[in-house]
């Protein structure tokens, strides 16, 4: 039994065939797609959403997940926050020569499990093997497609003064989980990555509520960077209330020690929503009754619209206000 990936696994011959059959198809299934060079899917909507993402997280396994789970949740969430119903995902793997087969199987298994949970199928894939040292273990690319139902469309242009900003739960968990998993920092916490597929929750929201203007998943760059980008694109001002932002005590403590700001840490299972103020109770009710949104809170509101320059302001606990900017420079490389 082969224990490690060798360059031959990527040559397209017998070993490649066995790898695909024994590892990928075994977990992902979908044999009907393997008969042609491309997967063919039936369209049942007029609008299609496509997204692609590469995953290089270090370490590959971390509290609350691994690179495989992340490669599914990340792509599913990008579709879901755009209002799409994720349907299918393709997966590309770049493997380093010598990578343990056992680890690959674990990663592929957790991809399959997460895909099942999210209700998407993995319909096409590719594997390449490169010499030792050319990549760090394993990198994954996933591309996701989803359909947009007529009733699920988002209308960011309807944003107006008084709209509320909601975050679906505690901020910065993924960032700190990764930092703790990188043992070199000597930081030990029990914080788990929040990585999770949000599509079922967000679809329920779009199904039941009308006034959701826009949604974003605050991954790299965190809540601050996501909101700054949103405000710049939509030419509005958001005022956040610092003390309303849900942050775990352990995350806050770790940030104090390491000099990080939780508002700039990555999240992998959280969504930011801008919602019509009349729909707030309904939105919070749905979020808080779902496992993935139980800590949801209103954290701010839209105070100005149609401004030439959009911006995000943060009201600190002492009552003064400061402006938030994009993440600048390096915080944590290879966070996702």
């Amino acid at each position: 039994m082969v224990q490690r990936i060798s360059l031959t696994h990527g040559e397209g011959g017998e070993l490649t065939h066995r790898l695909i059959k024994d590892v990928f198809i075994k977990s992902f299934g979908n044999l009907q797609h393997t008969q042609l060079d491309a997967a063919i899917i039936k369209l049942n909507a007029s609008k299609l959403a496509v997204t692609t993402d590469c995953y290089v997280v270090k370490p590959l396994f971390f509290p609350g997940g691994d690179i495989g789970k992340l490669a599914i949740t990340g792509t599913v969430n990008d579709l879901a926050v755009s209002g799409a119903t994720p349907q299918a995902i393709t997966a590309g793997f770049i493997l380093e020569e010598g990578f343990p087969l056992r680890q690959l199987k674990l990663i592929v298994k957790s991809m399959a499990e997460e895909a099942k949970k999210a209700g998407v199928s993995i319909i096409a894939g590719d594997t390449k093997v490169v010499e030792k040292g050319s990549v760090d273990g394993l990198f994954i690319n996933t591309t996701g497609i989803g359909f947009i139902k007529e009733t699920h469309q988002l209308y960011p242009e309807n944003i107006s003064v008084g709209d509320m900003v909601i975050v679906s739960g505690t901020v910065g968990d993924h960032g700190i989980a990764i930092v703790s998993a990188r043992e070199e920092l000597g930081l030990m916490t029990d914080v788990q990555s929040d990585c999770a597929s949000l599509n079922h929750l967000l679809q329920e929201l779009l199904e039941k509520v009308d006034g959701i203007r826009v949604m974003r998943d605050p991954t790299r760059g965190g809540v601050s960077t996501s909101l700054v980008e949103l405000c710049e694109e939509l030419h509005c001002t958001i005022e956040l209330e610092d003390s309303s932002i849900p942050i775990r005590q352990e995350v806050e403590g770790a940030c104090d020690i390491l000099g990080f700001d939780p508002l700039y840490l990555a999240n992998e299972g959280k969504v930011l929503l801008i919602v019509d103020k009349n729909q707030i109770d309904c939105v919070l009710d749905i979020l808080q009754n779902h496992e993935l949104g139980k800590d949801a809170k209103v954290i701010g509101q839209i105070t100005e619209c149609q401004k030439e320059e959009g911006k995000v302001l943060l009201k600190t606990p002492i009552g003064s206000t400061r402006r938030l900017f994009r993440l600048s420079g390096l915080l944590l490389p290879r966070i996702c």
Partner: protein
Amino acid sequence: MEHLIHLSNPIILRKSLEAVIQLAEQYKKEKGRIPVLMEVCGSHTMAFAKTGIKTRLKDHVRLIAGPGCPVCVTDQKSIDTMIELSRDTNRILCTFGDMVRVPGSKFSLMEAKTEGKDIRVVYSPLDSIKIAEENPEKEVIFLGIGFETTIPILVATIQEAEKKGLTNYTIWMTTKLVEPILRTLLNGKEINIDGFLLPGHVSVVTGKNSFDFLVKEYGISGVITGFEPVELLRAIYKLLQQLLSGKIEIINDYKYMVKNDGNIVAKKLMEKYLDYHDEAWRGIGVIQNSGFILKPEYAIFDAKKKFHVSVEEPRKTKCRCGEIIQGVITPEECILFSRGCTPLFPIGPCMVSTEGTCAAHYQYMKEG
């Protein structure tokens, strides 16, 4: 933990803020101007900016950021020399994260890293001992910057290297001491400071008594304080109380961490391995006995003795970090601030460091 939660309680914060403003107004009425306080520590500078305390107090108390950020006070030539060390491929350079991005006259360590040089960021200097053990064929050099807070940990690496008999580990020491720079600032009289907010972490090592010279020789008060917003406001409050009563003393308001004599073990460790040394400070020049060097008997761990690197005199830029670290000007008065010099493309170290005054102003106080 309960105790810490109260230290950032918004209700207590707002009440503390009101109390500080009230006292500052009383000061203004009595003296005809607002009080001028210097926070010596870079982490205090960051906390003042981040919490909004500095902005909120700006009409009532003038808070001047002092020379307490270790990266910022390191002079350009030392930075250039440390970066130059990376040219040799047989070396692994270990340092703290901020140092990697500090621009040298020609390039930064980050750029050297992109060229394939082995430069590693460590959170604890002791990690570099492990790196030295794992790479016996390479020279591992730790770029040792820092104040009294960091120096004992740097020395601990020497102790560890000695214990393990490592011959491939050295430190390039460019450490700085708080007392000499405070004396220089006070002797220089470029700025009038009414009182000091003294650095909590440094005091953990040096002790409350290490600041007695401020009272005895300069007749100036100081409060040693922690880093939570309520602690910072309480320290300002206590300092203003002192200024109004005319009583001059050092108050230890960080008692749960700071002892009168400091950390005796750390001090003994420094005494064993280090001698005083004249250090060059950015924009200020050489200050006598303002840093440490390894004692001659530990020369094998001294990178300055082992490797000979020479660099040209740094080219002059319009960067005014030197004046900023002395509190002579604010970052906004520097022509480069937020124009040519930003955290993404920094020119001076004060914009790079997570404790730098310019970074604090850019990140947390910039309005436009």
